[in-house]
């Protein structure tokens, strides 16, 4: 009896440890289960074109979530990422409409999101304000700026370069792949490499886990935090490019919940909201899980409110798993 309990406790501990070591495993399993279920439930879900569509649907939020992962890893949060991206889409569209070169327009949008990153990172490191407050403020400001720039009207985009990520595609084993998908994959690989194979990545995890210990062990905490917000800003600028590739219209009223969607993807991907633990691979899975749910449930003709209900329940389940894993690690 005692032995059996001891064994089962040990097994559970090792599962918890396993999840901690490889946080992407849980979301990957959820993704596979969802794909299998929807493929069985509908005739239309398992189809190469549809799978490609689902990936394209998760591109913008997935790219926002990539930057958000970095921010959350240092136990920050960015509530303004989608707003910053929307302002960037409007700047790109307005400049292109005014006759600017597509590359110049693209660059201007990306520079803006990087400046926002520097602003947030600067306040977070110099004045030690909580990221929640800073980005709540920047979110409000950027939302206003986007409405002022657009006057509420959508700005159509005809520039080839700005639409390039969505319009150019090639076939890979029969699956239509857009350049946007390719770019997102490369970005994920790049950030994965930087996080796991470089000193910078180790610093990011260390700062997220315990900033004081990181400082004592010689890590330049402020510089790491600032660099994270700058890299995140860069990804939000590229998310703006992705968004224009998806819909060639810069609309100030879209992605109203993009900030929360990106946080959802990060948390579903197994990254801890308390920082220091998680992976971009998990985030990729998290973003895909949401898109798969939406696509599959819509094809099953499930009402949108029930889709939101399912997404919310899944999110809470992910946090519960995170908590249990942490508790088992501590005990």
């Amino acid at each position, binding site marked *: 009896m005692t032995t059996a309990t001891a064994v089962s406790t040990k097994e559970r501990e090792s599962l918890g440890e396993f999840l901690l070591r490889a946080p992407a495993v849980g979301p990957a399993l959820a993704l596979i289960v969802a794909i299998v279920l929807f493929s069985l439930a*509908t005739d*239309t*879900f398992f*189809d190469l*074109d*549809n799978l490609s*569509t689902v990936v394209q*649907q998760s591109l*913008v939020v997935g790219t926002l979530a990539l930057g958000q992962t970095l921010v959350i890893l240092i136990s920050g949060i960015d509530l303004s990422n989608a707003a910053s991206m929307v302002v960037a889409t409007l700047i790109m569209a307005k400049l292109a409409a005014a006759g600017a070169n597509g590359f110049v327009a693209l660059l201007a949008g990306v520079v803006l999101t990087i400046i926002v990153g520097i602003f947030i990172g600067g306040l977070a490191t110099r004045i030690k304000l*909580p990221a*929640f*407050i800073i980005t*709540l*403020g920047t979110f*409000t400001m950027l939302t*206003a700026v986007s*409405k*002022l720039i657009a*006057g*509420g*009207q*959508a700005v*159509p985009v005809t520039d080839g370069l700005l639409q390039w990520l969505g319009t150019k595609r090639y076939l890979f084993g029969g699956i239509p792949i857009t350049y946007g998908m390719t770019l997102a994959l490369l970005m994920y690989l790049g950030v994965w490499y930087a996080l796991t194979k470089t000193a910078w990545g180790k610093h990011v995890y260390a700062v997220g886990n315990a900033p004081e210990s990181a400082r004592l062990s010689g890590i330049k905490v402020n510089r790491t935090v600032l660099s994270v917000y700058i890299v995140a800003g860069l990804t939000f600028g590229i998310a703006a490019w992705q*968004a224009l590739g*998806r*819909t*060639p*219209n810069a*609309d100030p*009223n*879209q*992605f*109203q919940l993009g900030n929360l969607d990106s946080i959802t993807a990060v948390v579903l991907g197994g990254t801890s909201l308390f920082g220091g633990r998680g992976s971009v691979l998990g985030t990729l899975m998290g973003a895909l899980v949401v*898109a798969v749910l*939406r*696509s599959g449930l*819509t*094809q099953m*003709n499930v009402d*949108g*409110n029930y889709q939101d209900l399912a997404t919310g329940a899944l999110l809470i389940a992910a946090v519960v798993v995170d908590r249990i894993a942490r508790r088992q690690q501590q005990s």
Partner: protein
Amino acid sequence: MRQRSLTAVALAAVLAATTGCTVERHWGGNTNTGGSGKAKVGLVTKTDTNPYFVELRNAARATAQANGADFSALAGQFDGDNDGQVRAIENLRQQGANTILITPSSSTGVLKAIKDARDAGVLVIALDTATEPADAVDATFATDNFAAGEGQGAYVKAALNGVPAKLLMVDGTAGSTVDTQRHGGFLKGIGLTDSSPEIKGHTAANGDQSLAQQGMENLLQRSTDINAVYSMNEPMGRGAYAALNARGLTGQIVMGSIDGGCEGVQNVKNGQFAATVMQFPKKMAEQGVLAAVEYAKTGKKPSGFVNTGSAVITDKPMPGVESHDSAWGLQNCWGGKK
């Protein structure tokens, strides 16, 4: 530390809530009621950044100036900001308005403030959106959204030319009054009901272009055998169009929308929408201010629902459906000369 961040969050929330209104004050003074001579008109819109409300505000201000009335405009901070609108009404009363024109954010959330104002002798006219019950205000000058939807439905039906509809519907915020009225009107116009098998699917996209695109992509995965699309407003119509375009389906589909913004009329001109239905916020504002002037002079109050009309805009007119072309639409988008 945690305690301190909580305090900071609470402070920020209070700050955000108290900065909700934009104010343009033009007068000081006491409460004036009808028949006292000079009209003092206060306008409360849902937000002050949406071009639709900007158009409404500009038209109201111009009409007030032309008729020697004082004018002041306030707004909620976002669509649904009842609290901001209540504060705006209170501020206007404080400033001595004798008429308040309001586009209520929610049909019920601002009723108490409206009642208090009316009890004090202020004329209250709802613009653009009716209150529930409708007689909570003295009068309503607005688009008949059911009729606007009906116009879209009738056009789509005519354009299908006798072919049975295979319809996908892109709705707005589920349960909102405008959404319900346009949706119901469209179905009446096309001759269907919510349970008709001709409806092949629907998605709700909260007015968000990107959500409309995703919803439409997922619906099209079920079936591309469709010939008609309803969109509740123009941004969502653009999102739906992007999804249809990616599948190469735009040629076989009649797509209708509602709003009549200049961008939406341009979408009709470019052939993205077969038709859109234009509203006239400028008329609502002008008639509202004129009623205020009348009230100030004579004490006579307007009453009931005054439909400011809607017009189908299309470059492919259909017999039996009255319409204007996109050239007319571009000159008159939202009732204003551009």
